[in-house]
């Protein structure tokens, strides 16, 4: 069984990778068939994933393969591992990712037709799919990080696909850097975990992390709460450690939040959300898969994976971040006029829901919403893409209008997804479109959490109120987008005139996704909850499992506040009516004195970009300039100054040499020369005169020497008779004895020495 699953999984993984390699290496040969090649490969991959789902035996989790990758201990025995790992969550995600990717590939065949880099687009798209699958099947945080970054890379390439234009260049760079900011946090979290767990970075649902070194992290968290309750904050560290809050299990919060930083970047949560709307500069198929269905979901997926190590404090932070994103993005979606940006902010908002769900502990619903949202948001983007395609790349909704008549299928698919995202359901029943199932669960979880926390913490009510508020806002902004695009009269004739229904290759995926948007919730909610049971059990998540059970207080409250499934109708109907003829009515309200500043601020994305570009980015660049200046002027200047000092010193010594030493030498030489001028008169140049001089000198010396020896002149000369030896002879004998001694050492080198006897018998 496992072998089959492993084979299928490897096949499913290899298909997109093979597509990438094939298209990059043999792209010229494949040419226009690239789209079909990639799509069929992805289709096969999807089939593999569905098969796995079908045969997934016990809904448990299993590590299918594990390889040593990076050595982390000195003896070379400890490793960071990579491999293949699946649990119910992974199976569902694999099916979702490969399915949506296949549909997006299909859609791109029509959308990207005629692009000069057609082949390369599919190569990137397949690589992206591969990377995303890699995240899903990661058994360890390190492998997750690897594919995490690869997803970032492919996203960079896809957003910047039309890099000749300036906006995509900036957008892709921004996306990557924002992701990197998050990743830095990820790395910090990873490092702290690494240091504290001794390198056990296997993901929580496996046996590795939870039981690392006998430390059951979950029980540690429990113990932490207990010790805090008892007022005993045990801290083994002091000073800086206390300041950083690293005492006892503070590191765990820090690690969890660090890892969550990565999720913030990837899932575009506040405050790193600004890249997502800009990423809409990429081709629309990219937006539909990368920035709605999969990549941005990776952050949520990661948070879900590390859920067990998240301390209560960390969860509160996570929920708050999600909450801010949720509300802020919904409000912005309400004022944007670019159709893709509306969808982008709506994505942000929905991601906010998921993150809130994780923060409040509605673990299963966060992932459920991730999957349902993938279907309808992907469909929405594809419809938007079709519209943009039909409208000759006009993206401003103010210039649309009445397109529903020209492209009815697209309008229908869009409409279905609007209903899905609004959480539409048949009132008083539990039947609804996909969004209803997942979102109501999240709101129910938020109610439970909010009620629980508001008793201890005053602003706690926000945790249930804001998700509820956004549940009413969502139908409004989606209705606005639908009405402005498809309803009313055409506002710009040129756009409307040439508009046409999308070609089948684009329409089919749209419709397929729309169908999924209708049925996936109803079809999947029971299996999802059941499938996540074992995973949740391992992680120790018990609550909220059966939110749809009638007795759950949170669910009861949620249903009540959402008018028993009828809550969506009011804002939706209002939106459709209010925007049926364009923005006229709305802009009048927006211009009113009370709303105007808010409207303006929302239109400017709450000035986040301004702050980031001008302030942070500007500061970084300014700092780099300053440091560069310091480097050139001060550090290097110091070096050059030193060198100059050396050369100055050399010059000075050179001058000293020339002016003092040389001159004195010159002076000496000159005086010698003058003396020589005097003396030259004695030098006649005659050889014999020299000879004469020499011998006169010899004679004088001889006389002096003799004078010292001859007793005539030397009163106290030692008597030769007394010693029996003349003075000179003494010297001679010394010489002889010295000589003998010397010859002794040299004698060894005389080759005849061995023949001594024969010579001297």
């Amino acid at each position, binding site marked *: 069984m496992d072998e089959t699953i492993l084979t299928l999984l490897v096949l499913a993984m290899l298909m997109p990778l093979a597509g990438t390699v094939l298209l990059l290496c043999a792209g010229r040969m494949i040419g226009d068939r690239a789209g079909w090649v990639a799509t069929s490969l992805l289709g096969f991959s999807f089939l593999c994933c569905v098969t796995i789902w079908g045969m997934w035996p016990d809904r448990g989790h299993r590590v299918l393969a594990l390889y040593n990758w990076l050595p982390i201990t000195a003896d070379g025995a400890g490793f960071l591992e990579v491999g293949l790992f699946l649990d119910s969550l992974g199976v569902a995600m694999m099916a979702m990712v490969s399915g949506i990717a296949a549909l997006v590939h299909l859609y791109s065949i029509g959308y990207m037709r005629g692009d000069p880099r057609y082949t390369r687009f599919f190569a990137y798209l397949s690589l992206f799919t591969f990377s995303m699958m890699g995240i899903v099947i990661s058994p360890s945080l390190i492998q997750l990080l690897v594919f995490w970054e690869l997803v970032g890379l492919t996203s960079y390439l896809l957003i910047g696909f039309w890099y000749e234009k300036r906006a995509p260049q900036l957008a892709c760079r921004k996306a990557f850097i924002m992701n990197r900011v998050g990743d830095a946090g990820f790395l910090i979290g990873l490092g702290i975990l690494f240091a504290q767990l001794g390198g056990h970075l296997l993901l929580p649902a496996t046996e590795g992390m939870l039981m690392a070194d006998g430390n059951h992290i979950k029980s540690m968290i429990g113990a932490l709460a207990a010790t805090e309750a008892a007022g005993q904050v045990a801290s083994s560290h002091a000073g800086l450690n206390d300041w950083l809050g690293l005492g006892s299990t503070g590191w765990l919060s820090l690690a969890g939040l660090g890892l969550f930083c990565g999720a913030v970047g990837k899932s575009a949560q506040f405050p790193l959300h600004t890249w997502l709307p800009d990423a809409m500069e990429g081709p629309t198929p990219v937006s539909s898969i990368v920035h709605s269905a999969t990549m941005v979901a990776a952050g949520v997926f990661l948070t879900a994976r590390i859920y067990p190590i998240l301390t209560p404090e960390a969860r509160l932070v996570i929920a708050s971040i999600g909450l801010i994103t949720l509300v802020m993005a919904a409000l912005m979606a309400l004022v944007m006029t670019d159709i893709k940006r509306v969808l982008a902010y709506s994505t942000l908002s929905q991601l906010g829901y998921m993150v809130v769900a994780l923060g409040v502990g509605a673990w299963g619903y966060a992932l459920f919403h991730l999957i349902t949202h993938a279907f309808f948001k992907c469909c929405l983007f594809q419809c938007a893409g079709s519209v943009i395609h039909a409208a000759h790349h006009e993206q401003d909704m103010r210039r649309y209008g009445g397109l529903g008549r020209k492209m009815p299928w697209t309008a229908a698919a869009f409409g279905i997804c609007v209903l899905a995202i609004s959480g539409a359901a048949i009132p008083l029943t539990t039947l609804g479109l996909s969004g209803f199932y997942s979102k109501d669960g999240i709101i129910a979880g938020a109610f439970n959490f909010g009620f629980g926390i508001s008793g201890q913490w005053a602003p706690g009510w926000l945790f249930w109120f804001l998700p509820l508020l956004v549940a009413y806002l969502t139908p409004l902004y989606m209705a606005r987008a639908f009405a402005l695009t498809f309803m009313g009269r055409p506002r710009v004739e040129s756009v409307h005139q040439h508009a046409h229904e999308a070609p089948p290759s684009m329409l089919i995926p749209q419709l397929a996704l729309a169908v999924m948007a209708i049925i996936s919730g109803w079809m999947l909610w029971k299996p999802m909850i059941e499938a996540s049971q074992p995973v949740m059990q391992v992680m120790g998540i018990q609550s909220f499992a059966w939110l749809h059970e009638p007795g759950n207080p949170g669910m009861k409250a949620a249903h009540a506040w959402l008018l028993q499934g009828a809550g969506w109708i009011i804002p939706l109907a209002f939106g459709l009516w209010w925007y049926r003829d364009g923005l006229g009515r709305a802009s009048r309200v927006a211009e009113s004195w009370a709303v105007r500043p808010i409207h303006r601020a929302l239109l400017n994305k709450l000035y986040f970009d301004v702050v980031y570009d001008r302030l942070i980015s500007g500061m970084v660049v300014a700092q780099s300039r300053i440091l560069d200046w310091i480097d050139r002027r001060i550090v290097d200047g110091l070096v050059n100054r030193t060198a100059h000092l050396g050369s100055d010193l050399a010059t000075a010594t050179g001058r000293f040499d020339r002016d003092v030493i040389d001159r004195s030498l010159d002076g000496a030489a000159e005086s010698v020369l003058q003396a020589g001028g005097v003396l030259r008169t004695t030098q006649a140049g005659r050889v*014999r005169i020299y000879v*004469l001089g020499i*011998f*006169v000198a*010899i*004679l004088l010396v*001889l*006389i002096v*020497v*003799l004078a010292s*020896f*001859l007793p005539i002149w030397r009163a106290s000369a030692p008597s*030769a008779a007394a010693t029996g030896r*003349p003075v*000179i*002879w003494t010297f001679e004998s010394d010489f002889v004895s010295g000589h003998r001694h010397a*010859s002794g050492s*040299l004698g060894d*080198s*005389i*080759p*005849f020495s061995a023949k001594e006897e024969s*010579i*001297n018998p």
Partner: protein
Amino acid sequence: MLLLHVQTVGSSEGWVTLVLFYLFAALSGVSAWALVLSPNIIRMAVYLMLTLAGVAGIYFLLGAELLAAVQLIVYVGGVLILIIFGVMLTSRNPYLNVAPRGGEMALGLVLATVLAVLLAVAVLAAGLPEAAAAAPDDDRYAVRWIGALLLSRHLIAFEVAAVILLIVMIGAGYLVRRRIKANQAGATEGRS
């Protein structure tokens, strides 16, 4: 036969040695001073030959027969010939008068005499030993010992001497060649 006797300086048969010594000493000393007084270069050369021969005899007396032979062959046979060559090559007049002027001669003689006297005084004052303490072995001065010494203790000096000879050979040849060239150049100049 004579040589056998001569080898034994300081032996009981000292009178032969004594005679021979004075004979050779007189030959070299007288010739040397005759050389000093001779005005003619060729005669000077002849006197020099006699002096050198006398010195060779002294070497014989001292038992250094190889040295004596070398003295005769190299000095008398080689150096002297060279000097004669020099005389012939540089003198248009074969009997060039090289007589010194009177004052110079006087000065030279005075100085030389002073030197000789001083040296003699010094030698006598030093009280040099009369003779060697021990009688030497027969083969003391055997040529093979000289060969062995030259190739062992004095090897470097020997090699240096060899190199100097080589250099001298090359250098002399070079100098003469330059002269020939210069002569040829002078000849062509003269012709034009």
